[in-house]
């Protein structure tokens, strides 16, 4: 790993926000597993325990993270990581010590994407842990387990693309609030496109495929053509976001 990447990785994992967030996520997952899925709560909340509990619980909880919460959390974290560093004049410091702009942004992207993947892994671990504590070995039923882990992997890819998008936003806007506001707008548009019937727009919208995988095909296997189509679109978006970040960084006046 390059020294600059190491420096950034060290910097981001020192953020207390991450540990607070995952502590909260663990608590939420624990409460869902132990309280909401009990028969008494089931009646109160009218939740179908057969669907959200047991082997399907990790997939059910995954949606909480990758749908909205995780994206917003990444936006907050990356705004601190890039925009606030820019504001406090730390972003350009490596450039005064022999680093190039291209290497600097590659290191940032590397850490940000790595971080988003690790966070998805961490949510998978937390959800499986709480599910195991509640239902025991039942959750490791082979078909469901493979399907869920695959969905986590796909979510990881989606979160990486979104992370690249947030990095591009941070670099272009150079403002934490503009970045977070843009992400909120993205999430609203995302919901609108998923629920609308504009097929052409849905086909080219990166968030549509995640919704398709997690909602339309919830607790089911994803058809191969849907999966490949979604991944291709995500890769294209990812490349575009990365190129935008790279191009904008070269033009940036500090």
């Amino acid at each position: 790993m390059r020294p600059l990447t190491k420096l950034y990785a060290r910097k981001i994992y020192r953020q207390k926000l991450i540990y607070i967030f995952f502590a909260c996520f663990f608590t939420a997952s624990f409460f869902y597993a132990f309280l909401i899925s009990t028969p008494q709560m089931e009646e109160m909340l009218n939740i179908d325990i057969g669907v959200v509990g047991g082997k399907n619980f990790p997939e059910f909880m995954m949606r909480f993270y990758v749908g909205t919460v995780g994206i917003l959390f990444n936006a907050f974290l990356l705004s601190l990581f890039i925009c606030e560093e820019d504001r406090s004049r730390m972003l350009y410091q490596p450039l005064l010590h022999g680093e190039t702009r291209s290497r600097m942004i590659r290191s940032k992207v590397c850490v940000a994407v790595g971080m988003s993947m690790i966070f998805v892994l961490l949510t998978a671990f937390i959800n499986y842990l709480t599910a195991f504590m509640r239902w025991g070995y039942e959750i490791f039923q082979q078909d469901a387990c493979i399907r869920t882990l695959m969905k986590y992997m796909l979510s990881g890819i989606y979160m990486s693309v979104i992370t690249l998008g947030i990095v591009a936003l941070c670099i272009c806007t150079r403002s934490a609030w503009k970045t977070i506001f843009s992400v909120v707008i993205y999430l609203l548009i995302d919901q609108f496109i998923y629920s609308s019937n504009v097929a052409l727009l849905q086909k080219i919208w990166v968030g549509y495929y995640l919704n398709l995988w997690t909602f339309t095909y919830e607790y089911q296997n994803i058809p191969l053509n849907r999966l490949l189509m979604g991944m291709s679109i995500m890769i294209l978006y990812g490349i575009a976001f990365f190129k935008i970040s790279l191009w904008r960084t070269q033009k940036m006046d500090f």
Partner: protein
Amino acid sequence: MEKIISVKNLRKTYKKSNKLNSETAVDNVCFELTPQSIMGLLGTNGAGKTTTLKMITNLCSKDKGKIVIDNVSLDENPGLALSKVGAALDTPSFYQELTAKENIECFAHLYKNIPDGQVMELLDYVGLKNQAEKKVKQFSLGMKQRLALARAMLGQPKLIILDEPANGLDPQGQIDLYRLICDMAKERNTTFIVSSHQLHDMEKFCTDILILDKGKSILQGKTEEILSETTNIVDCILEESKTAETLLSRCQGISLVSQKGNLFTIRLETVCFDEFIKKLIANHLYIRYLSMRKYSLQDLFLKLTGGA
């Protein structure tokens, strides 16, 4: 003679908020520096000092011009050119949660050949050895300035650029910092570009001066030459101000710089001090107060930038 930095026809314009007009921040700035020079970059706020320094460090794009650092063109090989430069720009910024030593180490890792112990040596050099394990968030601005200097010294650069390094320092701190810069220039064969508003101190320790006004270079050269070329200033209080004013404005070889009531400030152009006194006496002017002072960098700066 060997040149550490050569800047030619540097120009930078910024688009105004309405995007139709542009504002020239730096216009046709040129200078060259030899090893061990300390150049004072002076100018009023918004004169283009920081923009110039940022263009030299490639943090800011330039519209026109050429920058060569130690015979390496910044445009052609920015990586190599900037490896010879250390800089502390803007307000010193650090990772607040890390200690002084950790902060310097973070950046030391970006260099390939930093020997063990150099971080502590640098901290010792800037007088922060005893604070090495203290978190930067507990540092005063003066300590941060010193730490920024230590960071700029990493990799033993041939050229160090400091943007208003004396900001926030107490008078003793300023003197110590300037001494440190002078020592470094001599002992480590380092060249410095220092932007500052401390004209009195700059006059003492800078070998070269460059004054910018509205982005343009209005004066540059060796400090000694600039100040020796300029003439002496006489402050005098004379009776009968009307008569004195008429006489002084007619008198050849002198020029009236300013007048506040009976207090006249006069620049001796070609006339020496003795001759000037003789002229006053010959014209029966009663002198209540008379003092001569050397034309300082501050006088020159104010004259050139149109200050009071």
